[in-house]
């Protein structure tokens, strides 16, 4: 006698279906049924992700322009050669690297500090947490729009705050209009908006550290400083690294906030790769060239992310 619990999922399914279908399903293996259920998702994935990727790679070797009715020619690696030898492209790469490095640096620094402070039990703890996470609930387009007003040299609050603390004339500088300040203006806004995200992840990490570890350290008379460096940081590190990965990928493809704030200017100093790519693909309509550009960016992000995830796994294993 067979126990009902020993029935395979296929048998259960077959018993619940009308006889003819059941007979057919009984003839299938578990693996085949699994494939039947997974196939629509795989098909969708292939259609939406994999096929466009392969098609993009194919286009990257052509001179195709989506706005022209002319014959498409295969031009080999010419698009790749052009991109990799174009000094303007390297400048946008530099602008992206600057943005990426400093936003992550400040967000980790401030986000972890805030998480550490919030993790200490005090009155109004929940209220402060809610207030701190408010910026990340806003739309990037809205944030970009109101920060352009805050940065306005004549009426902007930001300039007046800087003026209050430094005595500098508020209309004497323009955060989004000056070459030396504009890259920092986008770093400030992104940090303001996304530090709470890092804070929340770090907070989860800090709260996952059992109290008894600190109690044991207290018994061993370890100083607070030593506890911080030998318990808090190592145990929160996987969470912190995960947060950095998320923000790194997000900021590499940053578009909306920066377009709203500076439009890539002044000149091209805040023209990140995503903005530059959009211009090539959908304003200049150099589809083949833009495809090659997208492939280069994809390989860069994929490569860096893979290396990073390996490092993250090693940290988690420790």
């Amino acid at each position, binding site marked *: 006698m067979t126990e009902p619990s020993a029935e395979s999922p296929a048998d259960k399914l077959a018993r619940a279906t009308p006889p003819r279908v059941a007979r057919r399903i009984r003839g299938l293996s578990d693996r085949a049924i699994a494939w039947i259920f997974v196939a629509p998702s795989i098909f969708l994935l292939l259609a939406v992700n994999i096929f466009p990727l392969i098609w993009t790679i194919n286009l990257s070797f052509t001179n195709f322009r*989506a706005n022209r009715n002319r014959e498409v020619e295969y031009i080999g690696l010419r698009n790749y050669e052009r991109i990799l030898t174009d000094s303007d492209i390297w400048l946008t790469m530099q602008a992206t690297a600057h943005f990426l490095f400093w936003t992550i640096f400040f967000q980790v620094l401030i986000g972890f500090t805030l998480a550490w402070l919030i993790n200490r039990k005090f009155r109004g703890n929940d209220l402060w947490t809610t207030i701190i996470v408010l910026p990340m609930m806003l739309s990037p387009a809205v944030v970009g729009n109101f920060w352009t007003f805050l940065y*306005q040299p004549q009426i902007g609050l930001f300039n007046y705050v800087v003026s209050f603390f430094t005595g500098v004339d508020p209309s004497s500088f323009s955060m989004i*209009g000056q070459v030396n300040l504009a890259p920092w203006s986008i770093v400030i806004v992104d940090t303001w908006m996304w530090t709470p995200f890092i804070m929340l992840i770090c907070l989860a990490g800090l709260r996952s550290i059992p109290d008894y570890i600190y109690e044991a350290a207290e018994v061993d008379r370890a100083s607070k400083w030593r506890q911080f460096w030998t318990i808090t940081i190592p145990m929160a590190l996987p969470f912190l690294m995960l947060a950095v990965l998320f923000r790194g990928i997000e900021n590499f493809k940053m578009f909306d906030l920066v377009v709203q704030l500076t*439009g*890539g*200017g002044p*000149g091209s100093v805040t023209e990140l790769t995503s903005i530059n790519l959009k211009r090539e693909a959908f304003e*200049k309509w150099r589809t083949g060239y833009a495809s090659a550009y997208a492939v280069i960016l994809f390989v860069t992000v994929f490569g860096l992310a893979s290396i990073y995830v390996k490092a993250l796994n090693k940290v988690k294993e420790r």
Partner: protein
Amino acid sequence: MRRTTLWAATALTAAAASGAQAEDLTLCWAAWDPANALVELSKEFEAQSGHTMNFEFVPWPNFADRMLNELNSGGKLCDLLIGDSQWIGGGAENGHYVKLNDFFEAEGISMDDFAPATVYAYSTWPKGTPNYYALPAMGDANGWFYRKDWFTDPEIMAAYKEATGDDLREPQTQQELLQIAQFFQGREIDGQTRYGAAIFTERGSEGITMGATGALYTFGFKYENEPGSYDMEGAVNSPEAVAGLEFYKELYKTATPPGYTDSYMEQGLDAFKSGQVAMAMNWFAFFPGLYADPTTGGDKIDFFVNPPQNQAASTLGGQGISVVAYSDKQDAALEYIKWFAQPDVQAKWWALGGYSAHNSVLNDPGFPDSAPFAGDFLLAMENVQDFWQEPAYAELLLAMQKRLHDYIVADVGTAQEALDKLIEDWTETFEDEGKL
């Protein structure tokens, strides 16, 4: 063959004229003052034809993106499109616009009835050939306006005389414009700090190119040594062009409001209407609205054509109206164009605030006095110059936007280097296009 197509066009227009079927037509254009005037004007067409007019107006910064995407995807949103002058090459070569020659011939619409500069710029492709893809719809050029009340204030006039030795007046040259703008920069008037001029510096679409070319053309900038040759060396980067670019940078650096780094039409209008600046550049299309403005219009404002330097020149704006090739309602759309081309409709168009390009309006003896800016408009249209109208115009424009903004606003390199790099960019584009 020619007779066959003529017959086809005649049959087509006859069917349209019979008004056999009332259609819902959609006209696409930019969202700005003249568009509102066109809505008002089109009510007459609706009453006469039985067709219903719908309008799709897109703000200028997104207009090109939105409409060119629509055309490139073969979209049927627009039956009629008032597209920018630079789109004519792409519209014709990529098959987006219906060629109108047979229709014009069948309906007796003559391009000789329109101002030659507008026909050349808005209708023909290849340039200057009698191949028409649009009817001149809205004549326009970049002009200037200023605070007449400040220019005629005795105290300010005396201060200007003392500071410069000259009389304060409408600028007669680009250098005089700069001198006046610098005089007003940071000046206290009625207890507020004012600035010299609002100019175009926008990076994203076409702003800084449209503004800077206003100076460049007057100094002697040319796109090619010989029209149609694509020979740019010595024309684009001539000593005169370099001087013109340096001039525009000086105007930007020494005579514009603080933070004026990404400004186009709207920002310029705001700067003037809020009393920030003494002068501003903008398209003539906005002038009726500016004159009617209760705060800074009326007797507080006056207008002048872009001042010459080495030669008279103005940057061309304006558009022609085309029938979109993907429309299923081309008959009704052609009917609209036929109606719009009539002299009495063109006269109403001007009266409502649109800039007619029809000779019957422009050559009317009363035209120069019909509005405070009408005479300047005529002057401007005599010497207009337009950007490349090639099918690859967007690529050419974005290259110029980048090089100009890099030099003027972001202080990258010299004017000579900016124009040299521009030639490199344009050469690459024309090579890709197979024209070099």
